[in-house]
């Protein structure tokens, strides 16, 4: 799994990092974003909705998994 360490970054930076990385992974792969800006909990699922990708969930605090499906 690809992990993006965005701890300490303010939104929208974690979302931008995710948007840069997802096109580089294979369809079906999961990108994990570590982000502690409280807005990430909202903005990462929203990005998935706007970009047609799958928000897998938040398995732990400050951890967000996104699967490339498009």
């Amino acid at each position, binding site marked *: 799994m690809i992990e993006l360490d965005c701890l300490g970054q303010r*939104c*929208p930076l974690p*979302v931008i990092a995710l948007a840069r990385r997802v096109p580089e992974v294979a369809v079906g792969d999961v990108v994990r974003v570590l982000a502690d*800006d409280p*807005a990430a909990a*909202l903005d990462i699922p*929203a990005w998935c909705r706007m970009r047609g990708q799958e928000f897998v969930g938040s398995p732990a605090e400050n951890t967000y998994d996104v699967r490339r499906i498009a």
Partner: protein
Amino acid sequence: MSGTPGPERYREHMPDQAYLDSATAAPLHPAAREALLAALSDGWSDPARLYTQARRARQLLDAARAAVAECLGVRVPEVTFTANGTDAVRRAVLGGLAGRRRTGRVFAHSAIEHSAVLHAAEEHVSAGGEAVSVPVDRLGRIDPDAWRAAVSADGVALAALIAASHEVGTAQPLSAAAEACAAAGVPLMVDASVLVGRLPVAPGWSLLTASARKWGGPGGVGVLVVRTGVRFDPPGSAAWSQPERAAGYGPGAPDLPAIVAAAVALRAAQAEAAGEAKRQRELVDRIRTRVAATVPDVEIVGDPDDRAPHIVTFSCLYVDGESLLYALDRRGFAVSSGSSCTSSTLRPSHVLEAMGALSHGNVRVSLHRDTTDEQVERFLIELPGIVAELRAEAGVVGL
């Protein structure tokens, strides 16, 4: 200065400021300005005293109270002027809860209440009470079934529902919510700050709050309405004298000139309300359509139809809300934002959070009687370039 060439001269031709944040505070209505100046000369005395100037002040207070009661369609003794909207809300919530403390200690409210309601809820919880938050859907509207379940649970002393969202404009199903409360025997408090002076508020509530600066009155005047027969035991009761209560102000001396101006502004706003609501609704429709068409990767938030007439909110992907707010300000547009970087707590707006909306790059535009067609057009023409510039600076074009 006359005829000076160069930058100094150029600055004199900065674009007109377009103030688009009436949901925070609308500019003072011209009728209110006049009334305020008159009342500063004529109504500064303490209305509780017995001499001539005080009697004049009391007359002005009574007239203002009667005007507000008439505008809201309530009885005069039901109206109290408070220090501001937040004060009205706190007293409504804590007073409504304390009035029914023997029935229960649960406060049920929507997830998208104004922070004043949520702060009062926290105060209630830290005093040993309980609070239940009812979720909203993607448009920012409560689910009537979830609301009914929440208000009919055991021990609910008070329920609160904002009339329409102050952040995204979505109107709430007030009549259905009031019916559910009535069936459960629970009083309903409605924070109507967004609608008062603009649209009628559906009946069925027990307590109502509003804020004069939202309708074109001065800051520092809130309105609290407690319907006759509602059990009400507000905080700070010990300091609130019976004559003050009876006169509809206090505790402590009222800002009478501001109250007089607030009442005049409400009358004037209501007289213009039908036409203004229609005009502003059409301008908001135009903003919703054009922003969606001309700004790539934007999420327009809230209900497109069933909403307050003057509020529109959208979020721009990959854009930092604070930078967007400052960029708009430099071009002469005053707006507000629910993005976390623009809040003192560095958390995204709880309203956007409850809706699951994109929270960064967020802008709330709210219109008022002085907002012109030209200002909205200029905003719509300049916004796409401003957003594109910020995205180019951040290197996110094409992502």
